[in-house]
């Protein structure tokens, strides 16, 4: 039952990303969307925690939300895959259900 976890809150304002990383099982995926995309940026107070989780979990970030917020793709942590809306839909079909963290 590998799930797709979506996180839409900034990791600096809420602890949804940390809760998700704590409980996501090996082989599952995390997709950062909306204000959640700030968690995909390198050089932040939370980036080491995300990098540590990469050995067990696949990470994705929604490109249109990155562009909207003026964040640069070259500052996204290595190992993240950038997806568009079609990629988002594909992920929901590839995994066994979606856990939308709020």
């Amino acid at each position: 039952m590998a799930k797709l976890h979506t996180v839409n809150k900034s990791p600096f304002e809420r602890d949804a990303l940390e809760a998700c990383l704590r409980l996501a099982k090996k082989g599952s995926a995390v997709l950062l969307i909306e204000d959640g995309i700030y968690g995909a940026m390198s050089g932040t107070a939370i980036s080491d925690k995300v990098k540590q989780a990469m050995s067990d979990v696949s990470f994705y970030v929604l490109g249109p939300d990155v562009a909207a917020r003026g964040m640069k793709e070259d500052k996204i942590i290595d190992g993240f895959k950038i997806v568009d809306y079609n990629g988002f839909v594909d992920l929901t079909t590839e995994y066994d259900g979606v856990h939308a963290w709020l």
Partner: protein
Amino acid sequence: MSTTKKFLYVNRKAPYGTIYALESLEVVLIGAAFEQDVSLAFIDDGVYELTKGQDTKDIGMKNFSPTYSALGDFDVSKIYIEKESLEARGLTLDDLLDLKYEDEDDDYAEKDSIHVVSRDELADIMDEQDVVLSF
């Protein structure tokens, strides 16, 4: 009798995920229209409001970041950014909009509106205000 008060608008939310950032900007412009002494502070996720290169065409929302560049024309020229908030997010001044104003007391010289300040300096700025509105 002077009716000018010192207004500080405190911005702590990222843009687009919630409506706070846009609503704050609307209220700032109202305060400026009433010729109050307006300052803006950007702390915590509020620093994300000022990133340059915002492109919202694929999320179906209006990009309101160009409006910050117009603040100088409304005599809003005191914009304070907390240094610690920038650093925690891996951002530098180069990642932010280049906001300017023309100083009418200095032959309309173009000057920077943005001031990066420490947490302690910002606490003092907040303490000096008559009215603080937090978003």
